[in-house]
């Protein structure tokens, strides 16, 4: 994984909107404040994995929410928030459907 860092504003904004729409919003939004992430090696599509100091093994648990966006070049971008098996934030999965690098991070309005 790459360097652990704090969420960028645009990432936090996207996650907030996506998570707000879910039944687990109250639990998960509170963990966004100090969340630290690592950029995933997905070829520049922008996926993130949430970092934790918890030593327990983590793996995919469930997809919390998914949404389709369109990049500035018109290519659809599928965004999903994944939870680990413990129910904690695990990944912001961003898949641009032609596998090309993301040109503009998805933005949302409430």
């Amino acid at each position, binding site marked *: 994984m790459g360097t652990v860092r704090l969420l960028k504003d645009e990432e936090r904004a996207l996650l907030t909107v996506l998570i707000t729409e879910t039944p687990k919003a109250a639990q998960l939004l509170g963990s966004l404040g100090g969340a630290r992430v690592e950029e995933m090696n997905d070829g520049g599509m922008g996926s993130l994995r949430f970092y934790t100091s918890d030593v327990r093994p983590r793996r995919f648990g469930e997809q919390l929410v998914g949404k389709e966006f369109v990049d500035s070049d018109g290519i659809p971008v*599928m965004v999903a928030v994944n939870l680990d098996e413990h129910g904690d934030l695990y990944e912001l999965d961003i898949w641009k459907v032609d*596998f090309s690098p993301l040109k503009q991070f998805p933005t949302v309005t409430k």
Partner: protein
Amino acid sequence: MVGAATAALGGGNAAQGALGAGVGEAATPWLVNTFGSGTLPLTTALLGGAVGGGAGAGTASAGAEYNYLTHPQRSARAAAEAGCADQACVDRVNAAYQKTSVDQNVQMADYLIGQGNLPASLAEQLASTDPGSVGYTALLNQAAAYESLLNPTAELDYQFINEIDGEPKVGKYDTSAADNFGKAVGALLWGTSMPAIADEGIGGSELEGAAAEAAEVSTVRGYPVGEGAELSTSEPNAAAADGVGEGAGGDQAGQEATDSAAEGNPTIQFGANENQSSHTFRHVISGGYDATAVQNAVTSDLNNIGASLPQGQYTGTIVVNGTTFNYSAYKLPSGTINVGRITPPR
């Protein structure tokens, strides 16, 4: 802990190799202080041989020089380095993989501590030592030596997924042995610490057009089959195996384009390069499932419905060895079907 892997891959005694490597690396700080780093390969080999016998003698120096990366990770690192235009890029790639190595060392320590065979003092030292330090590696190898002595089968399996830089692969992974224990542990190691490369090292213009190039030369581009098969016990699905199961082996296996023999089948991609393919299959791998079998099943499923599939997103379901997987695909205007997500059950 690559010493044991060398013994295992070479047909030697893995426990003996692990002990040799463990002692050799445990002594590394002392060797550095005493002789300087330049003498390490020879002296650690001597120490490993003295303790571990023949197998240890052949593996300890490699263990001292290299940390813990799996073969696919080494391949991905090599590919990333090959794509670098300058030394700074190479340095970034190496730094990223060093981070991966450290992370995996931590996971390995967790596993070894969890086995309950370590002396309490050693477990405590592991827990309190910087995982990026040389001392941590030495402690880890001491722990592995203990574990290999008390639980040699588990240790052997654990090490089957390992490989050393700079040495040719001398034998196939023993997938039958890896299947029982190594599959679960390997998935833990592999899946939660997938090849990590700074995006700037391989991204940008170097990736521009990769998807288009892939579509031009391949029919199925996906999981590094030649490597994934090493952890797989399943034969490729005959219905979908044309061009999949025969992926070229070696370091560039994952991105060797293969052709489908079935006329009229859609072009199916699981990523535009090896890193993206690994990304697509990450949850499959971390769950301990057979990535090659899953890829074959998805390919078969899409081959069956591809012609009638409308342009746009499609969510499919497959069952592999009794396990249901969901996948997310997208049919492009060109007819190419890209698969970007595959998720196992919770």
